[in-house]
């Protein structure tokens, strides 16, 4: 029969799925965003990499720049310094963060909500601010320099304290999550087997959070080694890689050497990033949907010790801010301690004046709005698109890259790429647009992951149902996906806003005379010796970020109330 003949043909014929109009539109969206990531990330990084192999006339000289770098101990010694600072900070931060996270999840101490909020405060300030507070506390004319027993605050001690302050919330978030997914049944079994408290701690608790601890360690390490704010303010003569980049570029206009240091700084950041991703995958596997949440039992002495510890950490964090606020209000420390608003007359100082503050608010708003749109749309296309696996795989890779690129490196790469005379995008240099683009790109990965997680949590078949009902994807996207993911979308926008307010690293190379920013103003005023106004501006950033956070909190609560009818389970 003819069927048999047909059949043999079809069995060998590869089916080439026809893409629908939706498929083409989704791919087009994805390509546009991929193109954005290429222009805003891959090409600039390439420009920087190639710059590190050229002399200042643009002639290729191979590894000569690297040879010069490693032949100059004053430069290459910074590698040791950076790693030294990062390792010490990682150790201290993870220890402090674990203890606080333990108090928050495993004790019955009172005011947990308050302590948790306080622990998040450092996210709301630029990393320059703890440095400024340390100057006031332990500097030559500081309030309590004797506490250092003759040691100098300018240098490793100051940097480490500032970095611990700056990285603590990140570590606490990760470790608290790891501790709170513990399965109560494991502890009940351990008690039933008559293990004592210490045995339980070492055989159940620690193994349960090991991936969280490792992950927190890598995050802290990366944040510290790439941070520029703390060593800039409190580092003194102690050079680290991040400040070297800044000095080479801004101080000596030696762009090639800046590129070399940047490439070197990329290495530990990229390694830490890759290892962290591998560890995170294992962490996910540990999560069991049927785990019973652990409810801690009250133990008076233990709870009191934990409370005391939480108070200490809070005093450390809030104390730094209070010192900055006090310094900002004092007329002329330490000679005239009466209070006033003199230091808020930013227009009288270098750094861009009040304009820079408002520029920052604009910049943060644009970043939040456009960044959220770009990130969420991109994540949707890559998660829910059909076919085109290669393109989607490459997009995922591009979206993960920014996490491994330190802000300073990104900023410098932008100089090389956008400021190149032949680049048609040259006009962007010094504009508000490039500040927004660099900030979105710098914080792309975490936003992307937040979006992807939210998208993975909604029913995978919405798109299939919608296609069967012959409705275009953008209808499903706007009427179902976005409303359902609104909490995550708000989270992304607040994350972008706060980081745009506080970031210094990428934008420090990119702002122009009309686009100075508050965080850069803090840096420049501190550089010029106007430390009190720098503290005042830093606190302005804090109050702004904190207000927006609060606004976000109320908005989320309102949203939850309004949508609880369909969110209840």
């Amino acid at each position, binding site marked *: 029969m003819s*069927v048999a003949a*047909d*059949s*043999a043909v*079809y*069995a*060998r*014929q*590869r*089916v*080439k*799925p*026809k*893409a*629908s*109009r*939706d*498929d083409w539109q989704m791919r087009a969206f994805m390509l546009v965003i991929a193109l954005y990531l290429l222009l805003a990330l891959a090409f600039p990084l390439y420009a920087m990499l190639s710059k590190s192999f050229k002399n200042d006339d643009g002639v290729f000289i191979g590894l000569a720049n690297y040879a010069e770098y490693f032949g100059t101990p004053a430069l290459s010694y910074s590698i040791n310094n950076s790693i030294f600072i990062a390792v010490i900070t990682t150790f201290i931060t993870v220890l402090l963060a674990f203890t606080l996270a333990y108090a928050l999840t495993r004790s019955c101490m009172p005011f947990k909500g308050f302590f948790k909020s306080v622990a998040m405060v450092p996210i709301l300030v630029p990393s320059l601010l703890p440095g400024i507070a340390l100057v006031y506390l332990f500097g030559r004319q500081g309030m309590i320099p004797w506490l250092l027993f003759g040691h100098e605050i300018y240098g490793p001690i100051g940097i480490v304290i500032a970095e611990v302050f700056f990285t603590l919330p990140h570590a606490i978030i990760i470790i608290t999550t790891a501790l709170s997914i513990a399965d109560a049944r494991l502890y009940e079994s351990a008690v039933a087997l008559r293990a004592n408290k210490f045995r339980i701690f070492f055989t159940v608790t620690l193994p349960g959070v090991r991936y969280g601890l490792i992950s927190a360690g890598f995050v802290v390490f990366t944040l510290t080694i790439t941070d520029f704010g703390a060593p800039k303010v409190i580092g003194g003569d102690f050079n680290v890689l991040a400040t070297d980049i800044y000095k080479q570029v801004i101080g000596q206009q030696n762009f090639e050497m800046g590129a070399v240091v940047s490439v070197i700084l990329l290495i530990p950041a990229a390694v830490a990033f890759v290892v962290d991703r591998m560890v995170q995958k294992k962490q996910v596997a540990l999560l069991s949907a049927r785990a019973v949440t652990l409810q801690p039992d009250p133990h008076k002495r233990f709870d009191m010790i934990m409370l005391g510890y939480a108070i200490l950490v809070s005093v450390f964090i809030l104390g730094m801010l209070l010192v900055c606020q006090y310094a900002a209000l004092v007329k002329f420390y330490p000679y005239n301690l009466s209070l006033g608003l003199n230091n808020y007359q930013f227009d009288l100082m270098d750094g861009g004046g009040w304009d820079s503050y408002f520029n920052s608010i604009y910049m943060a708003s644009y970043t939040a709005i456009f960044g959220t749109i770009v990130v969420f749309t991109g994540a949707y296309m890559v998660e829910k698109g*059909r076919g085109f696996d290669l393109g989607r795989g490459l997009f995922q890779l591009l979206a993960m890259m920014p996490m491994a690129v330190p802000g300073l490196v990104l900023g410098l790469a932008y100089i090389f790429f956008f400021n190149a005379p032949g680049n048609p995008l040259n006009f962007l240099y010094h504009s508000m647009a490039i500040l927004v683009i660099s900030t979105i790109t710098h914080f792309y990965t975490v936003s992307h992951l937040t979006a992807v997680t939210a998208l993975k949590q909604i*029913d*995978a*078949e*919405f798109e*299939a*149902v*919608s*296609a*069967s*009902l*012959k*409705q*275009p994807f953008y*209808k499903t996207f706007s*009427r*179902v996906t976005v*409303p*359902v993911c609104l909490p995550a979308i708000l989270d992304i926008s607040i994350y972008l806003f706060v980081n745009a307010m506080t970031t210094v690293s990428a934008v420090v190379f990119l702002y122009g005379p009309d686009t100075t920013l508050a965080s850069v103003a803090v840096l420049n005023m501190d550089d010029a010796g106007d430390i009190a106004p720098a503290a005042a501006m830093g606190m302005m950033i804090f109050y702004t970020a904190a207000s927006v956070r609060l606004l976000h909190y109320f908005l989320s609560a309102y949203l939850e109330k309004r*949508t609880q*009818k*369909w*969110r*209840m*389970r």
Partner: protein
Amino acid sequence: MEKSTASKHAASQPPYLRIIDLTKKFGPFTALDRVSLEIFDGEFVCFLGPSGCGKTTLLRAIAGLDVQTYGRIEQSGEDVSALPPTERDFGIVFQSYALFPNMTVSKNIAYGLENRKNSKKEIKQRVAELLELVGLPDQAQKYPAQLSGGQQQRIALARALATSPGLLLLDEPLSALDAKVRVHLRHEVRALQERLGVTTVMVTHDQEEALTMADRIVVMNDGVIEQVGTPLEVYREPATIFVADFIGTMNFMPGVIDRAHTVTVGGQNLRCKADGMSAGEKVTVAVRPEDIIVHEAGGDEENVFEVTISEVEFLGSFVRADLVADQFAENRMRADFSINLIRRLNIEQGANISVAIPAERIRVYPEMQ
């Protein structure tokens, strides 16, 4: 593959859905291996098999959600092999319901009716009609989360039927529901399908569901079709050992063909209807527990032999007895006896009884690998 003879459709009618030599590969893994199948207009077909057998892959290929690697699919005589889902004609219901959580029930049902030149009034009318159809006329303004699982699945069904598709695809639609709701919905879905006459394909791993709902069952395993047939056919005359084992309960015993229509199990000769096997061939003999009947004095059954009841398991309305006999050596047979019978004949553990197996109920397969 034996072709269904009991299909209620005339062979002259062209099939509504024709699947020809479908192969689906996920990397090196072959999920479907040259699967061919015809489904007729108005039929209710179940794809049945263990998880990973390829039944969902086949359904998703029919929908165009995961297009096959090789092979052809024709729907209403038209080649749809490479078409995206939006260009095919089907409605689909998933195990997860996939109802839009932020929309009310009526908005969910109306979703597919929009942008189709329907007036608002027409849409409203159609939604009311569909809610009536699935028996939930007063739930229009609720959100999915406010409904029970069974109600949500009915809404999903109404949404899939709203656009009057030519083909209804159901992907394990009842698997997430409680046992009682599930049994109830089986009948409702089937009644609805018969009323609308829509060609329906349902994927399930639940044999009871397939046996009670389907016109024809497609039993799948390891990416190939083991058997296509009516529920009675796949139960009574399983085509392969896999089907015999997968559906219902079955006693398997090694045997040897003695001569035409006679097979030897242990030391016992059994008359059977098996054809086309030569004497001396090693075979697997299969008998359902309910086909072993108690031989009472004066009965005229064939294949009668003596057994001892070694164990009795009470299962509610019937009893499953483990039968041993010297001639079967270590082979045990399980037999189902009704409670009435047990009472009447006073059957209990350790009793010796005579049993019989009707020749037409003995299935013989080439030896199990």
